[in-house]
């Protein structure tokens, strides 16, 4: 091994050339924060000035890049990852603003408890924990004391806050996926985060009634199995994507109940963008569907609906929605393929005394259709009622009968002279 000479006194030219090291500390932090943690830590062997620069970076991200072992050996990867996180946390000084732990081989091990405790003593603002494998990881109670949290993201976790939990007063964004929490915990969590603006819930269990009481909520994205969704004080909610992953039970579809559709929109006066996915339209169709909502969705400019064109109730609900969306600019209709089959419903969309009801509609996508009567009628209905339509894209579920479908489409009258129809092969 060659012996290095003792470091020379820093010559002037060198310091002049070294513009990087002389950047202000917060800029260097910013640069280091954008490096994978491995590269950031490695800067400690660059030079004396860089020895401990990495140790103050406020963002710590441990993801697949930090241990890129694609070994079958679980314990090996785990040990390596645990080692790295321990090492970094031990050497790190100063506040940790963001902590992200997401490695594809990470199980919900008890080491994570220790790390969470450590960072909960810092003024953590962004916490992201994604357990990709194994059982739900029970989040330790110390996480619930992080009152500076602004963004919280958990994947495959079990949440059981202590009884003293008073909510996250500053939390603006909450993303929970593959998560378990009890009904009361869920409601308490949502209602005790008064600043909440974004809420994502995907594949959850432990609660089935979604009572969303969030005065500042603007964005709500949910997909899962649930019985009920009720909004309360959600007057700022503008972007909603909602998917019910199971078919609605038949006993619920019995008419006579108060209409879910009405209840759903009462607290959504400013909705701008709505996606109705999986079976949620069927849920909305429960009860007596009115011909239109008492108060139109004046701000709604984008609507995406997953629909079974054969089912009367769903078509009714869709019609009600369309009638109540006078300013719609973009519409997407997705046929539920598994239920497409024999056309039973006819003449539903033929009633065209709603002349030019889509006065703003410019772009329409109709996907996954199988060419049944009610689908064609719906296309005809849209074309003849959309005077400013620019483009309608149609994509069938299967290529069979495509030619017949195209022939039908050609015949339809178009209220817009500018409208083009794009037929995509499936």
């Amino acid at each position: 091994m060659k012996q290095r000479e003792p470091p020379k006194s820093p010559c002037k030219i060198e310091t002049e050339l070294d513009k990087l090291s002389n950047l202000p500390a917060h800029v260097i932090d910013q640069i280091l924060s954008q490096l994978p943690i491995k590269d950031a830590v490695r800067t400690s062997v660059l030079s004396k000035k860089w020895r401990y620069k990495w140790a103050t970076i406020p963002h710590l991200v441990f993801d697949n890049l930090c241990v890129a072992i694609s070994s079958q050996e679980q314990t090996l990867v785990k040990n390596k990852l645990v080692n790295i996180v321990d090492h970094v946390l031990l050497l790190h000084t100063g506040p940790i603003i963001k902590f992200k732990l997401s490695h594809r081989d990470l199980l919900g091990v008890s080491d994570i408890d220790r790390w969470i405790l450590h960072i909960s003593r810092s003024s953590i603002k962004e916490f992201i924990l994604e357990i990709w494998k194994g059982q739900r990881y029970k989040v330790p109670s110390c996480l619930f004391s992080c009152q500076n949290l602004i963004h919280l993201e958990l994947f495959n976790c079990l949440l059981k806050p202590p009884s003293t939990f008073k909510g996250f007063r500053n939390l603006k964004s909450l993303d929970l996926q593959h998560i378990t929490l009890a009904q009361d915990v869920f409601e308490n969590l949502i209602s005790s985060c008064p600043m909440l603006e974004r809420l994502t819930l995907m594949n959850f269990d432990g609660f089935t009634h979604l009572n969303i009481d969030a005065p500042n909520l603007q964005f709500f994205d949910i997909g899962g199995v649930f019985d009920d969704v009720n909004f309360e004080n959600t007057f700022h909610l503008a972007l909603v994507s909602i998917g019910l992953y199971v078919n609605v039970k038949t006993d619920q579809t019995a008419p006579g109940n108060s209409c879910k559709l009405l209840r759903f929109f009462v607290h959504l006066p400013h909705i701008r963008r709505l996606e109705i996915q999986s079976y949620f339209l069927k849920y909305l169709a429960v009860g007596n569907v009115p011909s239109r909502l008492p108060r139109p969705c004046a701000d709604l400019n984008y609507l995406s609906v997953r629909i079974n064109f054969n089912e009367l109730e769903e078509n009714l609900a869709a019609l009600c929605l369309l009638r109540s969306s006078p300013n719609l600019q973009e519409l997407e209709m997705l046929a539920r393929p598994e239920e497409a089959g024999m056309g039973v419903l006819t003449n539903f969309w033929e009633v065209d005394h709603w002349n030019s009801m889509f006065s703003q509609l410019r772009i329409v996508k109709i996907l996954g259709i199988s060419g049944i009567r009610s689908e064609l009628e719906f296309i005809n209905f849209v074309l003849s009622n959309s005077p400013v339509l620019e483009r309608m894209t149609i994509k069938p579920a299967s290529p069979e009968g495509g030619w017949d479908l195209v022939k039908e489409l050609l015949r339809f009258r178009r209220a817009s002279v500018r409208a083009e129809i794009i037929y995509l092969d499936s």
Partner: protein
Amino acid sequence: MSVGTMAVVKPEMKSYIWIQTADGSIQQVEEEVAMFCPTICREIIHTGMGTSKNYAISLPQRVNPAIFGLILDYCRFHQVPGHSNKERKIFDEKFIRMDTKRLCELTSAADSLQLKPLVDLTSRALARIIEGKTPEEIRETFHLPDDLTEEEKLEPLNNVTDDPRIRLLNRLYAKKRKELKEREKLKNVEVEEEHVDERSVDDLLSFINGENGDSKGVKTNKNRKKNRRRKYQLKESSSNNLNGIHKDFNSHHSPCHNGELNDSEVSTPNKTSKLQCSTTVNFLPKIDFDDGDIDDDLDPAMKEELDREVEDFARRLNSDWPQRMQEILSLGQERRLVQGSMNGNGSTRRCTSLDSR
């Protein structure tokens, strides 16, 4: 059309701000462009400076005239509303194409003018330059002083070299070298005996078979085709660097490591050590002299084979080998291995939530 009119009419109506850079030179800048820099904007609003040449706004020390010109280019583009996101992105990408020294100066200047979007842009660019480079390369790129002692550089290694597979690899490599030496000795004896007549045949054979010169060449070729990309990287790394790694590793390894740690670590991954055994068993017989009689120019061929086997072994052992080696290498200041694109984050997990939609 509208652009043309703007170009004609605007200049007369435009108001200008007088600005003085650190070297004392004063220049006029369109007001809306100057106002794009928060620091200048504040100065104009709070102090009323900049309205005349005598009351020019002086810029912070960190903004030299050349860099200020760049900053004005940036502001001129971004203060105009109506550019699409794509246009902005394309502009930004072109804008940061400059040498690292200038990029650093620009970052510093943008920071002193509190031009946050530009600081974000340049610091991201700097991070991209640093990412994946060895310390040596980073030092070279940014003219950082190399003022740490070897010992200091090795300190962070304590943790990293704790990988049992690296040790296994080294052990295997050492074993192979020993075998090679023994075989060479043996060969030398043979060569002394029948010196003259085999020579031409050998040359011919090695010519026909290329450098592999044995039956296993076929097998490896097949392999090579199969994982051509990876193979390429591995080949490069093995042929260029493996010796280097090995030496380097050993020499750095000993001072920062104690035996106790070694033993306890090795015993953990049973599977790995088993794999190692079976691999060794597999290729050991092949090395024995199935082609010994035609090979008198043993050294280079065997060496190459050895490299290939170690490399094969490494690949079988685990695919992140080049990266691990790289870590060690770069920490130990040796040449860098080409980093494999093996950390493809197979992010399929979210499908569960999506497919049911």
